[in-house]
């Protein structure tokens, strides 16, 4: 857990050396994506259940929070809590029948659910503002404590992210975590050992949806504008890619993956038309040469360099 303290310290102090707000915007989006990736890492990496619909939960958190705080007139804090609660209920209702499915069928079910949600965001114009977007969402404030400056909001985001990571770590190293690993290896064997499969899977599914919804509602109150295009199939795929790049089971890896995928387009900006091509290429190459993710690739590169250095010393 030492690395978590290190991460917290690093993320908190980085803004001190940032020259301007642009970097803060990038960092906030990175952290928000990392929240999604951490939850999905638990689901995909540890419970072995794929989801191609988490952008939908992210969007549900964002839209519910936006609607409650703007149209209904609830305070932002309560809206966010209610939005996360609503997403928990919805994800439980969806997860209950979906998680009985396996492999590609589960992928289809979650994909289909994500598409249904994104159609709802687009078509219920009176509630969501439709494809043109939801305007005029209030800025994030929590029970009288207003986060008007980006830096305050950033610190809040970092705290929430670190709490999520801490929770996830405890979960992995708990009884439930061991049960999950058993479940990933062999579902039938786990069942035979008396592991309550259905409930464990559902718990992780709901937890990951809650992480996504929390991230979504912060996102809505940070941008103060949301549009359905941000919560579609492409984003679901991007989330999965973040987790896979991070090495599937590694939570620090998922965070690095989220930062990488969020920052990458900023670097590729100069390439414009070639960007999409490079993105595809990076995906393929990283899967080929670092199938266990960026962290694994780094380790192997390190080992290779060390071996070379040793060989050179001997030679």
């Amino acid at each position, binding site marked *: 857990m030492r690395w978590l303290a290190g991460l917290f310290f690093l993320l908190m102090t980085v803004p001190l050396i940032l020259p301007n707000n642009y970097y803060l915007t990038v960092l906030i989006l990175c952290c928000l994506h990392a929240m999604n990736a951490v939850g999905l890492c638990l689901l995909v990496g540890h419970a072995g259940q794929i989801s191609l619909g988490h952008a939908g939960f992210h969007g549900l958190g964002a839209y519910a929070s936006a609607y409650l705080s703007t149209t209904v007139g609830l305070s932002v804090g309560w809206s966010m809590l209610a939005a996360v609660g609503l997403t928990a209920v919805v994800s439980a209702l969806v997860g209950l029948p979906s998680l009985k499915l396996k492999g590609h069928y589960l992928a289809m079910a979650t994909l289909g659910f994500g598409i249904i949600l994104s159609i709802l965001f687009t078509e219920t114009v009176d509630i969501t503002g439709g494809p*043109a977007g939801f305007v005029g969402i209030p800025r994030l404030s929590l029970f009288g404590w207003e986060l008007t400056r980006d830096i305050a909001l950033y610190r809040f985001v970092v705290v929430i992210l670190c709490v999520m990571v801490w929770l996830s770590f405890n979960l992995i190293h708990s009884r439930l975590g061991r049960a999950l690993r058993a479940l990933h290896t062999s579902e039938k064997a786990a069942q035979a050992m008396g592991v309550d499969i259905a409930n464990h899977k559902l718990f992780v599914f709901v937890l990951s949806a809650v992480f996504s919804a929390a991230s979504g509602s912060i996102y809505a109150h940070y941008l103060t504008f949301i*549009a359905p295009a941000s919560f579609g199939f492409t984003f679901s795929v991007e989330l999965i890619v973040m987790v896979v790049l991070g090495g599937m089971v590694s939570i620090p890896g998922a965070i*690095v993956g989220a930062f990488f995928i969020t920052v990458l387009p900023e670097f590729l900006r100069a390439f414009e038309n070639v960007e999409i091509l490079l993105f595809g290429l990076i995906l393929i190459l990283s899967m080929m040469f670092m199938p266990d993710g960026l962290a694994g690739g780094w380790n192997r590169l390190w080992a290779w360099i060390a071996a070379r250095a040793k060989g050179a010393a001997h030679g």
Partner: protein
Amino acid sequence: MRATRWVGAFVLSLLFAAPALAADAIKIGAVLSVTGPASFLGEPEKNTLLMLQDQLNAKGGINGQQVEVIVYDDESDVNKAVMAARKLLDQDNVSVVIGPSISGNTLAIAKFFAAAEVPLVSCAAAEKIVHPVNPWVFNTPQLDRHAVSRILLDAKAKGYAKLAILTVSDGYGQAGRAVLKELVPAQGFSLVADEVYGPKDTDMTAQLTKIKGAAPDAIICWGTNPGPAVVARNRAQLGLTTPLYMSHGVASNKFIELAGEAAEGLILPAGRLVAVEQLSADHPQKQALEAYVADYAKAFNAPISSFGGYAHDAFKLVIQAIAQGTSAKSADIRDNLEKIAAFPATTGVYTYTPEDHNGLNEEAFIMVTIEKGTWKVTQ
């Protein structure tokens, strides 16, 4: 600690990624959808801006200063638009920004510009961009309201009473649908069918069959390519003879190419760009239009579209504001934009005031009919 090392490496490399820029040029930022679903807007807009930048600098710039246009692609994505806008404002310190290409992205970033006190001249059309007026935000395209008014005027003249609408479910179609649902009943027509289609749909026969059942006198379709071309083709295939109005979103030769023979007889409001040669020699926009069409054809081996014209006009308006005020400070550009009056450009003749940040009226549209594969001005 491995993860923290990674994060640290990223942040450090971010720090050194800041591009070096020329010091004394006037910096004009642009956030455009050069790729992604709205690239049909962003690509010609980007081409146009870079072309105009070179032209102006070759002539010695403005007030003795060169201009530097910094274009960022938002990939038609809100998050990327936000990051691009922040980068332009915080890091590149631009004096003024042109774009974004689409309404959603404009609405998402508009608040930054009021806070930073930098003017934004959007190339997107939604009414929310300029109503209520945000002192720092302008736009150049004609409003959907103007297009709908022209269509309804034409429908009234032809004696139609029952209208059906078929709109695309994206930002453009939604804005059009809202105005149509307001103005159609208000002008005394009855709205007998209100159908939509998805931006990626490839067959609208079901919607047209349903509309056929409602027996309207005319159909109004609101979308951008390729959807309306499919609608035109499906209409022909179904043997439907009900007159079909299109929106100005398809006013490019690409539409005629895609719809083929099915485009014959369709009526739509369009900017004057589609029919420059049919314009009388003394028309105020003639000169601007002819120059733009000729230059664009010379610079790019690509057909011209009226969307690039939105960026053209935004650029010319900004330069005009700088010329009028002799200063390229953000606040002065904003103030001088509001003083621009009767300024002819490709889309229309602009008159910005503190109450009107769109600057155009119905006159920016002409009604055209597609005849023998080309545009014929009817009004």
